[in-house]
Structures are given as structure tokens and as C-alpha cells.
């Protein structure tokens, strides 16, 4: 029987983990300040050879037909767009971070699910009339299951039993985790996220993506919850274990989304964008190996 996990257990494990990528926090901090955001992003791109190559490549494709090749980052940023580069930088840095923190065989399927949820979360954030930060939605959805990775790394046997028992009993994994560990992966993830300096709204979204009613009215909680549900409902990762058991009515109301005919365009956009992102030649895909 696995033992109860406490916040101090989780935080004590941080010494074994690498530092959270500071650039992700900086991007979030300067998002509403274009004067600070552009120089920061330019600096980040200039000092990251992989990101710089991708941004320059995108910029040169965007300027197709232009007379001169784009060779400086500043021009490239203006052509590609800051929002796009921010999304690329966040996704790449978080992918590398997860890879360094949790070098597990399961990481690839974990990352596919996280990317699928991120596509859903970003599209839901665009779709809802409620104001929600796109970048915060992206980060919350990419990181929503980080607590599960922690469990696989630090409680591997307990986590395997939890998974098997949840499947056998037909209950959600978070329910079984609470039975076995006294805590679920959402809470563990939110403790880690808070210790890495992520915003309270992102921590709340990670904590409550399976139990959203407890985290409302924070809209990011509803976004993370709907992202998880839609990723499964549309089976974006083609996983036979994908299931929808229930969706929080309160979350849908919070985002003013009712599942009427207009949902068809949301589903279409999610699926097309997901297929684009999972295309091996798409520039955004940077799954850990």
C-alpha cells in the first residue's frame, strides 16, 4: 500500500530536479508590456541557436517573394509575429525541461497528450468570449499532468497499481490516486508549479483540471478542464484508453460555451491544428525523445 504523499515530500524532491526554465516565467511577466516583451524575446531568440534557426526559417518562408533573405532576428520576429514566437519558445523550453526532469519511457505519450491538450486549450481560449490569456492557457495545458510524471518517477510501483486499479474499477485516475496516495496528480503538479514560480491561476488550473468546480471561477481552470475533455472526446492522440466520463457544467458556463452547432467549428479547428502540430515536419513539434 503506497504511503500518503505530502507537500513537503514533493518539495523535498525538487533538489533532484533541474531548474524551471526562467524564460517561460519572463515571457509571462512581460506579456502585457510590449516595450519589455520585444527586447526580451529578441534576446531569447538570439541566444538560442535552435529557436533562432526556426524563427529565421519561418520568417524567410513568410517573406517568400521578398527580395532579400531575412537574416536578423528582429526582422524575423516582426514577420513571424511575437505571439507565435512566444508559443514556440514556451513549447520548446517546456519540452526540454520535461525531458530533463522526467527521463522516462512514458514521456513520449505524456508529451503527445500534453500537446493535444495545449492545442485544445489554446483554441478554447480563442473560442470563449471570456478573456483568458493564450500563453497561460498554453503553459497550463502543457503542464497539467506534471504531477503524474512526478508520481511515475518517485512512486513508480504505486502509480502502476493506481493505473491498473482505476482501469479495473472504471474510475478516473485522479480518484484512484486520492484513494492510494491521499492526494492526486493535480495537487502534486500545482505544488511543483508554485515552487517553480508559476502564477496562481496556472497552479489552480493544474490543481483542478479533473475537479474544476473546486477551482472556479478562475477561467484558466475551466480551460484546462475542457482541454482535457476535448482531447479525449476527439481522440486526438489515437489512444484506446481515451474516455469521457463527465464534463463540468459550471466550467462550460464560466466560459460561456454551450455545446450547440457552433461547436463544430471549434472541433474542426482543434483537429486541423492538432494534425498540423503532430505533423513531423511542423516547426512547433519538439517532443522530447
Amino acid at each position, binding site marked *: 500500500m503506497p504511503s500518503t504523499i505530502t507537500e513537503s515530500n514533493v518539495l523535498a524532491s525538487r533538489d533532484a530536479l533541474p531548474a524551471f526554465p526562467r524564460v517561460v516565467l519572463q515571457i509571462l511577466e512581460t506579456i502585457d508590456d510590449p516595450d519589455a516583451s520585444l527586447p526580451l524575446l529578441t534576446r531569447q531568440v538570439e541566444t538560442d541557436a535552435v529557436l533562432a534557426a526556426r524563427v529565421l526559417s519561418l520568417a524567410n*518562408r513568410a517573406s517568400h*517573394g521578398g527580395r532579400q533573405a531575412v537574416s536578423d532576428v528582429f526582422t524575423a520576429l516582426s514577420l513571424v*509575429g511575437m505571439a507565435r514566437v512566444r508559443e514556440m519558445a514556451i513549447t520548446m523550453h517546456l519540452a526540454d525541461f520535461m525531458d530533463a526532469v522526467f527521463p522516462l519511457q512514458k514521456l513520449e505519450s505524456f508529451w503527445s497528450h500534453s500537446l493535444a491538450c495545449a492545442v485544445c486549450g489554446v483554441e478554447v481560449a480563442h473560442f470563449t468570449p471570456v478573456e483568458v490569456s493564450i500563453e497561460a492557457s498554453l503553459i497550463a495545458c502543457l503542464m497539467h499532468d506534471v504531477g503524474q510524471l512526478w508520481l511515475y518517477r518517485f512512486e513508480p510501483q504505486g502509480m502502476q497499481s493506481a493505473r491498473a486499479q482505476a482501469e479495473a474499477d472504471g474510475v478516473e485516475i485522479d480518484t484512484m490516486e486520492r484513494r492510494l496516495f491521499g492526494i492526486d496528480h493535480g495537487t502534486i503538479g500545482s505544488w511543483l508549479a508554485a515552487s517553480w514560480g508559476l502564477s496562481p491561476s496556472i497552479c489552480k488550473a493544474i490543481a483542478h483540471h479533473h475537479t474544476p468546480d473546486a477551482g472556479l471561477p478562475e477561467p484558466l481552470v475551466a480551460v484546462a478542464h475542457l482541454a482535457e475533455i476535448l482531447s479525449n472526446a476527439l481522440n486526438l492522440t489515437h489512444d484506446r484508453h*481515451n474516455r*469521457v466520463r463527465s464534463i463540468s457544467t459550471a466550467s462550460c458556463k464560466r466560459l460561456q460555451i454551450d455545446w450547440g452547432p457552433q461547436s463544430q467549428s471549434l472541433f474542426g479547428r482543434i483537429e486541423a491544428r492538432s494534425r498540423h502540430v503532430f505533423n513531423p515536419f511542423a516547426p512547433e513539434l519538439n517532443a522530447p525523445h
Partner: protein
Amino acid sequence: MRTRTRYLPIEDAQEGMTLAEAVKDKYQRSLLPAHSVLTAENVQQLQAHEVEFVCVTFTDARSPEEIANHTAEMAHAVMDIFRDADLDQPTTAALFNQVLIYRSA
């Protein structure tokens, strides 16, 4: 002949498809209006503008039997995903219905 409207990743967009919705760039400027017929050249241009997907209408060349088979197969897959769901709960039922319609289209 029946037509279908689909969102497609830009990689799957083909010459001759008709846009069901206008394509906009990252600044929400219209790149191509709705009802434009895609040419090889403007597919390339959309890719160059980093457009990720387009909404197109195209002729559905499938036979009625193929359509029926596809619809049944998709309905089965959706029901499997929702097999443990409480469909008496109105929000879950509404989502289920929309996913079913989407997959059957």
C-alpha cells in the same frame, strides 16, 4: 453530388478546393476570401504566411454505402469514448451529440 465542409491542416489543402471561410493571417487580415478556389500558388502562399489550417468545401465522392459505413464506424468510435459517461447529464449529452455529429459529417 454531396459536398463536405472540413477544416484541414494546411498540408492537406489542395488545388481546386473551395474555401468555406475566409483565411486570415496572424493579424486577422484577410488573405483569401470565402468561396475562393484554391490554386497551387495560393496554397504555397498560405503556407508561407504560416496559416495552419483552412476550412474548405469539396465534393464528396463517396458512394451512399461508403458514407453509411463511415457514419456507423465513427458513431461506434464516439460511443466507445463516451461509454462510461452519464448521458442523462445535459452538458455531457450535448457534447456527446456534437462530437457524434462532427464525426458523422
